[in-house]
């Protein structure tokens, strides 16, 4: 029984990490209806930016997020305004191709600058700290912190979408990109801001990734896959759905690991396929087809 509960708890905590990876992807899709193939590579880029910051500033790795998040947000805005906005149309193919190209470019630039060696952001005592729950159960402090950050982030984004003028403009732009212009809103600007928000979450995800596991320049594509699966399981365009999707993926992977250490990732993919078969639109879809 204790091992079942332990598996469930570890799975939910892992889900927090996946939800953090997936939030930016979900947000960008929700507003702009396009899938950023370079999403995983941007997360890894965030980890390397943190590495560079920590080489200059002797602060704890989490504090590096104070620099990484605004840098990534600014980079996201620039990439959207001057590159990706040119690809936005009813045809999703140009955006897919351009972001695929970006993915290759980011990987190769990182290889050139940082080499292919694996790196890690040293989390210090935080990496191994745990809270004991009885004799057989223990919860890692850092995974718990990661889940807390993911929940707080999604809550914050939900509030931004529901309560602020920017949130209103983001929803309206997602609803009707043409008519929103008649409200004095420049959709290209809104897309830039949406990508800046998404990239801010990506920067945070990068710092957490670097503290969670060793990373190298080619680690992006698997992160995209996990993020993509979390978004699809949860339902396109729903941030709480993305959190639930991340948790389902995390639990499935943890169960797989318990069955056989080589099966963890496979179980995650099977859970994804299962949801896709039963509910092709995901569990909590918000996106309307018009």
């Amino acid at each position, binding site marked *: 029984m204790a091992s079942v509960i332990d598996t469930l708890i570890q799975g939910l905590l892992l889900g927090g990490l996946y939800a953090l990876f997936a939030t930016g992807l979900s947000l960008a899709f929700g507003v702009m209806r396009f899938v950023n193939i370079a999403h995983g590579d941007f997360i890894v880029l965030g980890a390397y930016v943190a590495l560079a910051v920590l080489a200059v500033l002797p602060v704890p790795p989490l504090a590096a997020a104070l620099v990484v998040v605004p840098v990534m947000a600014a980079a996201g805005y620039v990439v959207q305004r001057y590159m990706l906005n040119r690809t936005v149309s009813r045809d999703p193919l140009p955006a897919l191709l351009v972001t695929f190209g970006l993915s290759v470019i980011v990987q190769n630039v990182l290889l050139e600058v940082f080499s292919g060696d694996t790196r890690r952001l040293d989390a210090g005592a935080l990496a191994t700290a745990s809270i004991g729950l009885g004799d057989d159960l223990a919860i890692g402090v850092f995974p718990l912190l990661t889940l807390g950050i993911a929940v707080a982030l999604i809550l914050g984004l939900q509030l931004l979408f529901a309560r602020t003028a920017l949130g*209103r403009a983001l*929803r309206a732009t997602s*609803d009707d990109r043409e*008519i929103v212009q*008649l*409200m*004095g809103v*420049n959709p290209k600007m809104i897309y830039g801001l949406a990508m800046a928000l998404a990239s801010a979450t990506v920067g945070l995800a990068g710092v957490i990734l670097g503290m969670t596991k060793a990373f190298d320049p080619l680690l992006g594509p698997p992160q995209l896959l996990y993020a993509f699966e979390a978004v699809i399981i949860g339902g396109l365009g729903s941030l709480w759905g993305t959190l639930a999707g991340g948790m389902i993926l995390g639990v499935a992977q943890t169960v797989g690991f318990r069955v056989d250490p080589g099966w963890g990732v496979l179980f995650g993919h099977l859970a994804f396929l299962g949801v896709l078969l039963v509910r092709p639109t995901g569990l909590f879809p918000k996106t309307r087809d018009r």
Partner: protein
Amino acid sequence: MNLLTTQELTAFYGDFQALYGIDFAIDEGEVVAIIGANGAGKSTFLRSLTGLNRVARDAIRFDGEPIGGRAPHDIVKRGIALVPEGRRLFPSLSVEENLVLGANPGRPGPWSLQRVCELFPILAERRRSPGTALSGGQQQMVAIGRALMSNPKLLLCDELSLGLAPTVIKDIYAAMPAIVAAGTAVIVVEQDIGQALRVAHRVYCFQEGRVSLAGDADALTRDQIAEAYFGTSHPIAEEAGHGIRH
């Protein structure tokens, strides 16, 4: 003084030329109706005025300045608002949010959330509902209110009566005098000719992308309109002529 003029306005809808050299003028405080059959170019004309259709720079002058080819978000800040065909409310936004977003261009003027709710009291009751949960007539009121919230000098109304019951159309058009009294000029595009003639000072009739008739609403005869509308003296003209004053 002319508030807005178009000169030799030409516009395309995809590869299809929808407007052929339209000359048009509207004065401050005036209500002008544009009538015409389906595909005559009425909606394209309104879309061109708002910037949703790209046109030549000097083809449209508003408040003395050329605005052709400017972006829609810039044109609405100058004072032209559109009530689009089919209403096009934002489904993710409540009634109140739809209206508040309309004020985004930030123009000062008489229209506020409170004033719009006085004009259409039902909207105050339904302000927390999703805009698309309302009846067609109520949605049309939201669409008009949303456009008024930008305090436009010129309000463009595209097919206000489309798909609405006659009593609802009457309620909607009952708001028109208050809008004009607040100092807004109005262009109404209508297929309902009788309705158009009742509210308008002047009428333009479009036919296949050209102005086929223009004149004071009071001065035009039923035969003139029927011919401008259909191109020839057509038996359907009898039908269409109902509601036109003689």
